[in-house]
């Protein structure tokens, strides 16, 4: 199957890209990795008159780290994160999540920012980056604006980005304490969208109490969700069997899944509970292991 005909533009600067989007408005579609857009175009479910390919925009490549945060350029591929062991110490959830996305070949092209902009509720990055409290920088004709991932995601396949805005990168705050993370995904096979996905990261202070926690849920709502109440119940407490169970139950009640061919709503909600419990248990073990190694 072949896409409908379109005109192709490959801008070489951010300004040019924003300008093209402004000029063609709804007629244009932005392409980063293209791993969701091109299949939709081949099935003729999407038929933009203009395709703006941002892969040649140098400002969107690469990543930078500061004392407080990691900034991933919009063209950061899933695979770049999957294979980067340097990120494991401070940003363990990123590598955990990247390795679960789609399949290894798609991961070589697909981008973090593209996944966020596509806003599929089953996508893995949105849940992960919600859990991490990340933000995106969007560049439009009026300059840059910072949008939290939470504010970015409105509905299935819908974001608060204006048609002429481009995500230039994703900012992930750096943890302050000891950190461990776990990403779990139930899928029918590799390459499938998640039946349920859970991404969670926990920071603890010197005393072992939870100082910061993020729990993101995929495929159990019209957008990726953050299990706020479950996070709250963990704050200031130690991870233990009871606290974990409590949090898992709260996370399950935060889920708002629909019944479909991947399972009933009740099933998916219960998987959230099981995965949060397993994820936090794994995190607890990793933190303990880290402490033992440190000591």
């Amino acid at each position, binding site marked *: *199957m*072949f*896409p*409908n*005909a379109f005109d192709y533009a490959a801008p070489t600067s951010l300004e040019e890209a924003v300008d093209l989007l402004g000029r063609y408005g709804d007629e244009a579609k932005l392409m980063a990795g293209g791993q969701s857009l091109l299949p939709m175009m081949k*099935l*003729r479910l999407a038929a933009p008159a203009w395709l703006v390919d941002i892969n040649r925009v140098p400002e969107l490549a690469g990543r930078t780290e500061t004392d407080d945060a990691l900034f991933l350029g919009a063209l950061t591929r899933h695979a770049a994160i999957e294979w980067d062991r340097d990120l494991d110490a401070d940003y363990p959830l990123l590598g955990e999540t990247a390795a679960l996305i789609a*399949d290894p070949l798609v991961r070589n092209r697909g981008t973090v920012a593209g996944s966020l902009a596509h806003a599929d509720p089953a996508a893995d990055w949105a849940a992960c980056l919600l859990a991490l409290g990340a933000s995106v920088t969007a560049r439009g004709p009026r300059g840059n604006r910072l949008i939290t991932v939470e504010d970015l995601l409105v509905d299935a396949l819908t974001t608060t980005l204006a048609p002429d805005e481009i995500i230039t990168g994703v900012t992930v705050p750096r943890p302050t304490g000891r950190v461990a993370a776990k990403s779990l995904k*139930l899928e*029918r*096979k*590799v*390459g*499938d*969208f998640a*039946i349920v996905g859970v991404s969670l990261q926990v920071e603890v202070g010197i005393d072992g109490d939870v100082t910061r926690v993020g729990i993101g849920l995929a495929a159990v709502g019209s957008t990726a969700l953050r299990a706020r109440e479950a996070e709250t119940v963990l704050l200031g407490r130690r991870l233990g069997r009871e606290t974990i169970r409590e949090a898992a139950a709260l996370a399950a009640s935060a889920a708002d899944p629909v019944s479909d*061919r*991947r*399972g*009933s709503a*009740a*099933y998916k909600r*219960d*998987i959230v509970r*099981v*995965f949060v419990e*397993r994820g936090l248990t794994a995190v607890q073990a990793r933190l303990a292991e880290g402490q033992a190694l440190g000591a």
Partner: protein
Amino acid sequence: MALEITEAHPLGKAIKRKEDARFVRGQGRYLDDIKLPDMLYLALVRSPYAHARITHIDTSRAQALPGVHLVLTGEDLAKMNLAWMPTLAGDQQMVLATGKVLFQYQEVAAVVADSRALAEDGAQLVDVAYEPLPAVVDPFWALSPEAPVLREDREEASNRIFHWEVGDSRGTDRALADASTVVTERIRMPRVHPAPLEPCGCIADYNAARGHLTWYVTSQAPHAHRTVLAMVAGLPEHKIHVISPDIGGGFGNKVPVFPGYVAAIVASISLHRPVKWIEARTENLTSTNFARDYHMEVALGADRDGRVTALRVSTVADHGAFDAAADPTKFPAGLFSIVTGSYDFPVAYAAVDGVYTNKAPGGVAYRCSFRVTEASFLIERAMNTLALRLNMDPAELRQRNFIPPERFPYQSPLGWTYDSGDYAATLQKALDIVDYPALRREQAERRARGELMGIGLSTFTEIVGAGPSSTFDILGIKMFDSCEIRVHPTGKVIARLGTRHQGQGHETTFAQVIAEELGLTADDVLIEEGDTDTAPYGLGTYASRSTPLAGGAAALAARRVRDKAKKIAAHLLEVDDAEVEWDGQHFVAMGAPDRSVPMAAVALAAYTNLPHGMEPGLEATYYYDPPNLTFPNGAYVAVVDIDKGTGAVTVRRFVAVDDCGTVINPMVVDGQIHGGLTEGFAIAFMQEIPFDEDGNCLAPNFMDYLVPTAVETPHWETGRTVTPSPHHPIGAKGVGESPNVGSPAAFANAVIDALSPLGVTNIDIPLFPWKVWEVLRQHGVAE
């Protein structure tokens, strides 16, 4: 690591495949790799509705698109009497819809253009007005008097296609009434699709000056397709040249003739230019021939000792909108009557009702000798249920009921004569490999800890190699197969067969058979298939029939060559014919072992130095009409663990012991087993093509029709017993389908075994995690 192709005495050896020399270089020549000068491309307009009346078709926008050369509708084809075509099952199928559409994605119009993209553009511009009608999705409802009659072209005002039955109905009922135990089960085998990685397609190249059609097509049965085409299109058969190039997998998908083929041929005849049609994956999964879709009910009786006494099966078979199965004529339900399996049933009865619904047409034999997978799944699942009811180990139950070796040839209650087998030995070998007693001990320990581990058995018998001319034909043509061998002066050989491989390795395995007979190496023998102008007539490759049929023909043709060669050898050795012996590589003068000639010398003499009066040349052709079918069998053991939190099943081990008689190439046989097990695994755990209540197909592409990756696919362990077929020229039985036929029940039985303490006897496949979890939740054992 495999042996080189120059190995002497090649039969039974793991020789490297000859065809791989091109495949590993990307030099295979598949259909879409063929580009002819001035070629045009065809795209199909398909129905968005499962059932609707077509009120109007406007092709003007498509025709006006630059680059579009032709738009065809059903009305256009009707003028040529081609709006409908016969199916191999004796039904008829719309080529392009006229009046109404009967399934979603049905072919409605065809657009021919300069490029494939332009053809698709044109297809988007064909405006079709539909008046939706209520869709008949449930085959049981289709049989009820209230259901609308779907097929207005038929005289019978019913959605029932056929009722077929076999066996002793009353005797079976009596035996069931007398049985001390009767178990019943509803067993569903869902609609699935063969989904070879290469989709279907063709290039029609009509030469008006010669009145000649060259037709390149992804065909598992090129000769049969040529004959069908001659009948459908009215072209003289000698002016149709069918070429089936390298095929990227078939699995039964590439046996039927599809509307896209006919449309491409009509377009080429109309435009006098080559026209290519390649289906997209979506088109493949939604329109070109599903498999299975059997709703089965079984009652199985047994006596106090656990000996089976009777089997009764009734089935509703959903064939979709047209019966486009490719079964032999006398077998509308294929060889489903193998349903008594490996067990000695005194009496049995089976009935199948074929039904029309608003779904894609088909009922093809997906890696299966016509409904044998359904039959095998049913009996192996039912035996599992019986073991649970009797509280007997399923291995013990099977051992107690196997047809014993001394009873072969065995007359089954449903009419087959099984050729050979040693079922108990085959099962025992599988049990030894897995260490069955240790597994059962481990299971008991795990159960005590609340863990869910299951062990599943399947000890199936297949029926393949259709078939003897007394019983088997397709559209009247007897189901023999053929081989023609020509030995060149330098002792090199070309052999052509009526079959067409799609990955099975014929270029190597048939070379091994012929080389063994002629004292050559596989390297000396070139195998050619798939060209109807050169190959002898044969019915093709499906239903595991190549080795039983064409393999037999190859051996017998080679023996004919050898018979003549022996006479030439006698002449060279200056002795009487009767004084020449064949030692496997040479002709030897009796009593004078130092006087011998190899086949190559005889070959040269056949063209240079013949006995007086002998016809020159060294060739033979054999059309092999087998005396019986062959009955491969196997014993499979699956070991699974169930995640109580998610319902996900992990296959920890899988042991497959197969008995396919004489083995031509053990490496190729193991490869066939690995592949078929993977397909069986997919069917058990993730594959189905469901429809919503409006008849919309819910698995139209690889996002939803799930093909397992290397990650999900278990590691396979294989073993073998060898019980040659007594009637096959080399004792071989065919193997390509056994793993697909036998394995789904082993997987399902393993999952049921894990859950059996809960009283569970059945869960419909595919065993998605949610289905297993629902059972766990109902019984309060979910994590």
